[in-house]
């Protein structure tokens, strides 16, 4: 058994978990505690000094959250992970460990609107400067590189839906520039796509979405791929310089291939604070147990629904990489052969008004700002998630006025098609 590499379904249920040694409880306990007792003063000191691993305080770490971290690290094929309060917090702490004031990073413009806003506005307060690039034209990434560029950020299956990013090609650019590649793998999940296998160095999740799966808990994860060499690299002082908070320890040296995960915890989470509730971690873990079943089902259902819409008279175009003839079809076959995910966009011949009208007439689909739920969801990004962008930015982000985005859930596809048909009928 020790020699065997467990399959993905097995890892989804078991990785990171064990029966509770104190009681034998099989399911992971919800350690809804703020603090943990120390054995003695020396034990406490060694924990605070990072000489030993253990539980101190739930803002820094928690045993329920730890199971979630190990589970997702195992599923992604990473070395370690950090669970945080949200996907936004995950992005924030990842960049916090990498960037100093005045630094730049390159980001794909095909992103979740919330990420675009965070990069364009909030990061200005820290002096972090985003330079936008187009994942459909890799030369824009090359041209965006400057001596100040410290990272590249892309999504794997990308917002607002139906975009596949060529991770391996962008990873090659990142490696040539000797900077880490960060991939937001929220829309794919490790069931469909494991970015570390294609050269990513750091993976981010909004676990709120497909990992948790049931739309009940906000959470985020940073996963360390253990591939980037931080040692001696002065561009990343959080990892390469002696840290005054920890008696001059150099995290990159002490923690080797999981140093990045450690840095985001002991420097980022500890000081900036977006801790994940143990109860949320418990619920996300629950969802992950059925991740393989859910992702396969929603991908299959989405293909069925997308095909139906592609031949519907009211529909101008459908953007879903699972459809043959889609511009990203061959990239999808290469990177996520099991399925192209559950989120896609389509355009209505009737434009903006038709989009708004459709959203209001759908009954089975829920109109709300989320994706990756057991329930099918619909949104008109131009008037909601991407509302704060300029018209130009909206179109650039694939969220033009006629665009409707669907996130397909676990319902019978026949029921989803029936609902779309009735809502599309005049």
């Amino acid at each position: 058994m020790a020699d065997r590499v467990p399959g993905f379904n097995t890892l989804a249920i078991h990785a990171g978990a064990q029966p509770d040694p104190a009681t034998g409880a099989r399911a992971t306990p919800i350690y809804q505690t703020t603090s943990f007792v120390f054995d003695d003063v020396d034990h406490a000191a060694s924990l605070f000094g990072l000489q030993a691993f253990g539980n101190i305080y739930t803002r820094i770490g928690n045993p329920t959250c730890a199971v979630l971290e190990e589970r997702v690290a195992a599923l992604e094929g990473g070395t370690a992970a950090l669970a945080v309060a949200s996907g936004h917090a995950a992005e924030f702490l990842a960049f916090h460990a990498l960037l100093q004031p005045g630094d730049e990073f390159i980001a794909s413009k095909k992103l979740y609107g919330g990420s675009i806003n965070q990069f364009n506005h909030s990061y200005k307060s820290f002096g972090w400067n985003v330079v936008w690039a187009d994942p459909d034209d890799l030369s824009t990434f090359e041209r965006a590189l400057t001596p100040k560029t410290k990272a590249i950020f892309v999504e794997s299956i990308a917002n607002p839906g139906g975009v596949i990013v060529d991770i391996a090609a962008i990873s090659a650019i990142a490696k040539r520039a000797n900077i880490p590649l960060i991939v937001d793998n929220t829309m794919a999940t490790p069931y469909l796509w494991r970015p570390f296998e294609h050269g990513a160095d750091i993976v981010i999740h909004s676990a709120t979405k497909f990992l948790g799966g049931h739309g009940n808990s906000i959470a985020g994860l940073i996963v360390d791929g253990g591939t980037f060499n931080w040692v001696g690299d002065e561009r990343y002082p959080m990892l390469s310089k002696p840290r005054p908070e920890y008696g001059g320890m150099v995290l990159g040296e002490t923690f080797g291939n999981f140093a990045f995960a450690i840095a985001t915890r002991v420097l980022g989470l500890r000081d900036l604070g977006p801790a994940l509730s143990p109860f949320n971690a418990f619920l996300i873990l629950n969802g992950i147990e059925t991740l393989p079943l859910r992702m396969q089902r929603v991908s299959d259902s989405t293909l069925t629904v997308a095909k139906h819409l592609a031949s519907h008279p009211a529909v101008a175009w459908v953007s879903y990489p699972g459809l043959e003839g889609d511009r990203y079809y061959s990239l999808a076959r290469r990177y996520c052969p099991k399925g192209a995910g559950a989120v896609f966009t389509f355009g209505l011949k009737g434009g903006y008004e038709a989009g708004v009208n459709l959203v209001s007439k759908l009954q089975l689909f829920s109109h709300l700002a989320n994706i990756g739920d057991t329930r099918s969801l619909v949104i008109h990004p131009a008037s909601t998630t991407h509302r704060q962008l300029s018209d130009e930015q909206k179109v650039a982000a694939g969220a033009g006025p006629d665009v409707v985005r669907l996130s397909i859930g676990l319902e019978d596809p026949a029921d989803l098609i029936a609902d779309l048909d009735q809502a599309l009928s005049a």
Partner: protein
Amino acid sequence: MSDQCNKTGFATRAVHAGAAPDPATGARTTPIYLTNGFVFDDPEEAADIFALRKIGFSYSRGSNPTTAALERRVTDLEGGTMSVAIGSGQAALLVILLTLMESGDEYVAASRLFGGSLGLMRRLEQRHGLKVHFADPTDPASIAAAVTEKTKAIVVESIVNPCGSVVDLQAISAIARRHKVPLIVDNTLASPYLIRPFEHGADIVFHSTSKFLGGHGQVIGGIIVDGGSFDWAGDERYPLISAPWGDYEGIVLAEAFPKNAFAVASRLYGLRDLGPGISPATAFLTLTGIETLPLRMARHCANAKAVAQHLAAHPAVAEVSYPSIEGHPGKALADRYSPEGAGSVFTVALKGGDTAATRFIAELKLFSHIANIGETRSLAIHPATTTHRNMPPQERAKAGVGGNVVRLSIGLEDAADIIADLDQALAAAS
């Protein structure tokens, strides 16, 4: 949504039935209403709710909005008329029996049941005079022979714990109808995804929601589902349902709630008087688990078939009870009621006897040695010394839970990993 529910597919209803966005806030998931009490509009409303003149929430032991969403969902999926969620499957069975019967009454029950059900029935007979006549559920003729004019109910499991036998519900319900007694079916090991007992003539269904419905082995709960099919009106054998309640202004439940009389009776007597309420937090987690019920049950069955097939051909194995495999005498009946498979709980008898069985369990690494069934993880236990220890030894062997028997509950892990773990443990035990 609720009107559309009956017309939509099972998977759709597993996600949506019984729930809707919260009208107060728009919250998409069902809120967890961890509250003991609910304010009344005025004293008249309070009095009306307590007197059953109005339906409303008063106290979470009796009813709660989160719990009500779970009740509506299970009602929908089972095709019943109303459900009552309760603290455990054990409490569900207790409340069903006590709502229908008093001391001195008699009923017929399957001789092959979950050990806890058997234990409860024996204890109720010893201490409270509820006389049980056991009959083999896999032989409808023996059930027919056990029924007399004093019989007040028949109780069976749809898929039997622990062997996985599928019983002939239609044949048994015909017997119940002939004698005008309600048929009660414990549908825990099937779930409504595989078998819907009301479609085969059952009158009352119950579950341990702790198992496949909840699905993740984390929360204990039960549910009683009224099929709305039994004619209680004027039937003096069931006074709680057909006779006036003195403390409720003489209400006759069969008349006041013609489609849901049994559910109302079991809520009033079982929850208001006896008390085993369910936590709304448990109801929330159970509701969440049900959203993936179709996916999970399909995989449980596919895994169980592969594992059972593999074990049936294993040299260390004397017998595999799972009926849905080629060559098993129970396959035709199992396929008739549950073509995808007879769930994922079954027993394995080892050639090496008691010692092999206990050693085998100790050697399992992926499987958890645990007293549970019907969750994402694969589980194993030795029934003779645990779940069925209260059975007299000679009956144990007859019931297929002798000392050389291990009960398996197959989970959702990769079948190859499950089989690898079983193989290495069998090798170590022989």
